[in-house]
Every structure is written in structure tokens, then in C-alpha cells.
């Protein structure tokens, strides 16, 4: 388990250094880059310090691991193999890391109900408690080094606008501009982010569940990840100032409203006007 520190984000750094720096594009970029670099290096250190020993020193006598192995053999081993080595229907979980377990079970994707193009998000299986999931995660983490669960995601201090830019470059192409989700190939899809907790978003980025690409900490630093999470939370909670958001999927639903409500309503009015008094 690691602790992701609330890092001073580049945007803020720029603001405290010189409030007018925002107008200078290149200067801001330079400061931003520096900030990211510092933040990335700092957090990387913390991260490595956090999980590297945890993975190696995992002893089989840890009661959590014992319990996790027990639960795993009942609930997961039929597909993933008795030693999580994987099977015909499911991948190996050695090296998958605790974050992957927490994400997959916490979002209800695992245990899988039926095979399809993609495991859908659903209510977490009630037969596994929070603690059960943690124990299984500990067990899986003990099998091989993998991404650990983040803790205390203090994203509130992050720069939302910077997160928005990162979101549009790295996330919007699949999850849509407002995180409403979108279609992928052959029945797969990028899910809506509206139900995802900050922790789950973070875990998804570091583990790359199913077909989602992995966004490692050297590619998108923990500070940047927090900024992305902040952006997702802000646009999720912000109101739609123009009225009903219409699903935030763009012009397709606007089309339906224009035809059904707009023209439909006006045609009814013409009928009223044309009718005999």
C-alpha cells in the first residue's frame, strides 16, 4: 500500500510564482514541465518505497494472505487457476497487483457473470466483503510485484484545467468529452465514468483493465492523475447551466429533442391553430 501525496500541481506552482505567468504560454509550459518533473520524481520515490518491499517480503504466513488465498480458491480459482496462474478463460494474475483486484472486484466486474466482449460494471458481489477483497488483493500482490492500491487520493488541490487538457488528450477519445462512455470495436465499449470513484479511476489508469491502455506513473505522473480525477469529478458534479444535459453525448440527443419536442410541439400547435374554433 502506498500513499499518494497531495502534490503541488504545476498550475498552482505557476500561480504562486507569478499570477500573470498564465498569459505567457511558453513560460507557463516550462514551469509546468518542471513542476511535473519534480512531482513525478518525488512521487515515484514514494511509490517505490511503498510497494517494492511489500512485494518481496510477502510471507506466506501473513494471515491476510492465507485468508485471501482461501477466498481466491473458492471464488476465483475456477477460472484463474488454483495458483492464479491463469486458464483458458482467464488471464494469469501473477503480477496483476492489488490495485487490479480492488478495481475488478470493487466495480463488480469480477467475479464475471458471463463471458462477453467486456465485463460490465455491476453491483459488487455481496458474497465478498470489503475486507475479503482486500485480503484477495493482498494475496495476489504477494504472488508478484504489480501496481499497488493508492491511498488517500487528495485530488482536491489539483489543477482542474490542467487535468482537463490531459483528459482530452488521453481519455476523451474513448470515454467521451464528458466521461459519458463510448463504443469500441466488436461489442466492447469504454464505460461511463459517472459511477467510478476516484480510487477506481486511479486504479484503472495504473492497471489498464481489459482493453484499456496502461498509463504508468512515468507516462502520466501521480500528480497528473490526480488532476485528471479532479477534472472528472468537477465536470461530473458541475451543473449543466443550459438546462438538461441530454446525456452529454453531443448532437445526437439534441437531434431527438429538436424533432420530438421542437417540431413535434410546433406541429401540435399548428393543429390547434388550424382546428375549428
Amino acid at each position, binding site marked *: 500500500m502506498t500513499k499518494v501525496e497531495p502534490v503541488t500541481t504545476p498550475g498552482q506552482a505557476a500561480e504562486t510564482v507569478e499570477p500573470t505567468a498564465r498569459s505567457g504560454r511558453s513560460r507557463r509550459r516550462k514551469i509546468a514541465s518542471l513542476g511535473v518533473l519534480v512531482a513525478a520524481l518525488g512521487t515515484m520515490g514514494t511509490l517505490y518505497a511503498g510497494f517494492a518491499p511489500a512485494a518481496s517480503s510477502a510471507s506466506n504466513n501473513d494471515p491476510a494472505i492465507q485468508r485471501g488465498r482461501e477466498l481466491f480458491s473458492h471464488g476465483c480459482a475456477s477460472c484463474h487457476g488454483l495458483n492464479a496462474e491463469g486458464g483458458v478463460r482467464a488471464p494469469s494474475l501473477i503480477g496483476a497487483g492489488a490495485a487490479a483486484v480492488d478495481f475488478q472486484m470493487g466495480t463488480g466486474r469480477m467475479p464475471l457473470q458471463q463471458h462477453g466482449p467486456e465485463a460490465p460494471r455491476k453491483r459488487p458481489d455481496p458474497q465478498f466483503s470489503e475486507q475479503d477483497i482486500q485480503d484477495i488483493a493482498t494475496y495476489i500482490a504477494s504472488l508478484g510485484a504489480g501496481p499497488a492500491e493508492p491511498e488517500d487520493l487528495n485530488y482536491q488541490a489539483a489543477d482542474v484545467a490542467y487535468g482537463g487538457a490531459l483528459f482530452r488528450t488521453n481519455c476523451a477519445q474513448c470515454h467521451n468529452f464528458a466521461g459519458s462512455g463510448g463504443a*469500441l470495436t466488436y461489442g466492447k465499449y469504454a464505460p461511463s465514468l459517472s459511477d467510478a470513484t476516484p480510487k477506481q479511476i486511479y486504479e484503472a489508469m495504473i492497471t489498464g483493465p481489459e482493453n484499456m491502455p*496502461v498509463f504508468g506513473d512515468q*507516462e502520466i505522473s501521480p500528480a497528473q492523475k490526480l488532476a485528471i480525477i479532479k477534472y472528472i469529478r468537477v465536470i461530473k458534479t458541475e451543473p449543466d447551466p443550459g438546462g438538461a444535459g441530454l446525456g452529454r453525448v453531443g448532437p445526437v440527443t439534441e437531434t431527438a429533442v429538436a424533432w420530438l419536442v421542437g417540431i413535434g410541439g410546433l406541429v401540435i400547435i399548428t393543429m390547434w391553430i388550424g382546428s375549428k374554433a
Partner: protein
Amino acid sequence: MSTTDDTPPRKRVGRRPTDENPATVERTSAQNVSEQHADSPEELNFAELQVAALFGVGIVMLIFFTVAYFAISIRDNLGQYSNYALGGSLALALFAIGAGFIVWAKKLLPHEKVVQERHDFFSPEAEEIEAENTFLQGVDDMGLGRHKLLRRTLLGALGLFPIPLVIMLRDLGPLPHNSLLVTGWKRGTRLVDADTKLPIKLGSIEIGGIQTVVPEGVEDINDFALAPTMLIRFGPNEILSKKERDWGVNDHVAYSKICTHAGCPISLYEQQTHHLLCPCHQSTFDMSRDAKVIFGPAARPLPQLKIYVDSDGYFRAAGNYSQAVGPSFWERRG
């Protein structure tokens, strides 16, 4: 009004004006056919009340709009309250006023059904012929048929007239030349992150990761709209094409992010199937097989950018793309 005898009979179709049906019927005023239904005074009074109530709603709503404009802050809730209040009151006011007009027309106006004759759509034949004759006479007077030289020079002059208008448009833009090949990539250009503009070191991308990169030194990406490139890291032995492996480094490959179909930036990458989907027109590329098109309207694979890693461990381009990036155009060499 009817065809006179001295004009040659001409084949024509359409309704002719006759004596019973003079061409000037429109001038006769409309006549009522159905008598007015006199509503009872109570009904009329009630109708007036209805209309007045609707106009009254309009008045109240317009006053509300004015108050709301000044009273409700546009800063609260992103201006949502302001939009609701202003839009809602405006809509209600307009609806009420409009409905008032219509109820007024329907209930307070005499119920009448008016019959009006239509007029003919064409002129009496004599008039048509006169117009034709006048026109042709003018052509004759001008001597367009006789003066050959005049006619030809006129056609020449008028024909050339648009030329200045058209060539003036020349400076709307430069000629394309080879500029569609310019991407910002040169031999030795470092690959930098599209947002942070930081160079990328070998190993910083996880297996199954993808990063959008641009050439180092490009400040505004919109200046080099063909530059965006994807750096993808595969797992060991996942790349199935030798050429793709050779142009990459240690399972890292770089491909143009600009779709070869209609130029959308394309990066819906599925790390297990290695499919890459375009969100605009759903062209699907298999990134493990040289970005081969496996579905959709794109005709060509995405161009690959040959990359290498310098002594400091940073990714660099081995040169520009070997072919034009983005959608096809006439001058593009197949």
C-alpha cells in the same frame, strides 16, 4: 382577351382564359360564403377574459425577466439559475402572447369562410406574343444578328470579364507544393509528450500503454496538425510484423495519430486486441500487424514513424514519415 385570328395558332397547354373565366378575377373582392356565427355575449366576454389573461401572463413574465436579469447572478451554479429564470420567463411570455393572439383570432373574430377566385398564372396569349415580339425587335434593333464582329467581340469581352474576379482569389492561400508532407518530424527530433512537452525515455511507458507525442520544439500543436503521433508499447512478441518491429525499439512503435481516412486524431487503442478505432468513422486498424485496416472506410494503414533511442535513453525520430500523413489527396503518390 382570347386568341385573335391573325396570329398563327400555336400549340400550347394550360387553361385558357375564357369569357366565363376572365383573367382578372383576382380583382373581384373576396366574398363570404358561410354566415357569421354570432356567439352569445357571455361567450364573447369569457373569450375576452381568456385573451386578456394570456396577455397578462405575458406582462408578468416580461417584468419577471427584467427583474431576474438584474437580480439573479450569472456566477451562481455556472449561471444555471439565470438561464432558467431568463429563458423560462421569456418562453412563457412569448407562449402566452402567441396563444393570446390565436385565442383572439379563434374566439373573438367573426367565423367566416371566404371564397376567392384564383387568377390565371399566365398572361393572355396576345400579351405574351407582344412581349416576345418586343424582345425580339430589340434584339433586331441592336443588330446582334447582323453585326458579326460586334457579337464576337462582345462575347469575348464578357467571357473574359470573370477572369479578374477569379484570379483575385488566387491569394486566398498558397499553392500546396509539398507542404502536405510537412509534419514537424526530422531525423533526430525527440518525441515529447503532447501536453507536458517532456521527452520520453525508454521504459517510461508500461506494457499496453499508449502516449500521444509531438515533435520537440512544436509549441502550438495546431501549427503542425499532421504531427501528432502515438507511441505504443507492446508486450514481448506481440508485434507480428517484422517491418513494424524493425522501425520500433524494444516493442515500442510510433504511428501517426492522424487517420488515413478523414484525418481525425485516432487513438482508441485496445491493449489486448491491439485494435485501434477511429471515433469519427470507425475505421479499425490492427496495430500488431503494421496498422492494417481491418474494418471501416480507411483504405491505407497508418504510416509508421521510424524511431530510435539516443544514448541518454530518449526516443528520437529516425526521419520524417516516409509517406504523406493523413487523408488521401490527388497528388499523393500511391
